[in-house]
C-alpha cells in the first residue's frame, strides 16, 4: 500500500499519522504475503498486526479530536465508521486467537483491510479536508 501525496488532507498531524499507518500496514502486508510457511511467519504476522492495530486506534482518536475542533458536521457518522471498523478488527483478532494457522482467514481479512483503508483515507477522510478548506475560506 503506497502513500500518495494526493491522499493528504492538509492537517499536518493527520497526514503524518496516515503515512505512518500506511507504513505499518505495509509491514503487515509484506509478512502476510511472503512465501514463508505459516509456521515460519506466524510470529511476524502477530507482531506486525498488533503494531498496526494499536496505531489505528490512537490515530482514530486524534482524527476524531480534529473533527471536534473544527465542528465537523459528519462527526457522529464518521465516528460510527471508526467504531464499526474497530469491532471488525476485534472480531478478526478473536477468530485469529482461536486458530492462528488459518491462512484463509488472514488472507481474507488483510485483503478486505487493504481496500477498506484506501477507501477510507481517499473517501471519508477527504470530506474532513474539504470541510476545513471551505471553512477557512469563509
Amino acid at each position, binding site marked *: 500500500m503506497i502513500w500518495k501525496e494526493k491522499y493528504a488532507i492538509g492537517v499536518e498531524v493527520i497526514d503524518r499519522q496516515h503515512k505512518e499507518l500506511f507504513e505499518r500496514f505495509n509491514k503487515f502486508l509484506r509478512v502476510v504475503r511472503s512465501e514463508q510457511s505459516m509456521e515460519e511467519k506466524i510470529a511476524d504476522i502477530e507482531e506486525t498486526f498488533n503494531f498496526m492495530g494499536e496505531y489505528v486506534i490512537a490515530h482514530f482518536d486524534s482524527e476524531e479530536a480534529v473533527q471536534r475542533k473544527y465542528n465537523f458536521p459528519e462527526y457522529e457518522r464518521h465516528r460510527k465508521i471508526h467504531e464499526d471498523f474497530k469491532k471488525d478488527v476485534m472480531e478478526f483478532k478473536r477468530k485469529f486467537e482461536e486458530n492462528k494457522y488459518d491462512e484463509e482467514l488472514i488472507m481474507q481479512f488483510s485483503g478486505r483491510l487493504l481496500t477498506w483503508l484506501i477507501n477510507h483515507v481517499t*473517501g471519508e477522510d477527504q470530506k474532513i479536508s474539504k470541510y476545513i478548506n471551505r471553512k477557512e475560506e469563509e
Partner: protein
Amino acid sequence: MKATYINPIFIAAREVFRNMFSIELERGDLRVDEKIVPNHVINVSIGITGDLNGIILFSFPEEMVFKLVEEMAGMEFKEFDTFMASAIGELANIITGNAMSNLSESGYACNIVPPQITVGLNKSFSTASKKILIIPMQAGNKSFDLYISIKE
C-alpha cells in the same frame, strides 16, 4: 425494475473509482436481459434486502482485478487468490453500500449482504426480477459490467 436505481449506483461507483484510483468511469449503453450471464471471469454479487430486494453483480475481467489490487497493494500477484477475492469483494461492497445510502435519500431503506465471489464463466445467478439491467462501465482502457436485478 425502475431506471431510478441506475443513477445512484453509477454515481457511487464513479466516486469510489475517482477517489481510489483516479479513474473516471464512463457509462456505456444500458442493456436489458432476462438472466445474468456474465461476460467476465471474476464476479462479485452483493445481495440487497429491505425496501428493495435483489442483487447487484459486478463482473470484472481478471486482468482488471489484478491491476486494481496490485495498485492498491503496491505489489505483484501471481494468481487470483483469497486475498485478491477479498480485496475486490470489499470494493464492490463499498460501492454498493454507498449506492444504498444514495438511494436512502429517495426514501429506500436497504441493507446489503456481504459479497460473494465466483470465478469462471458460465456460472448462473439467481435473480429477483424478470428484467436484468446491465450497465457496461468503461474504466480507462478497461471495461467491466454491472448487472442489476432489484425489485421493490
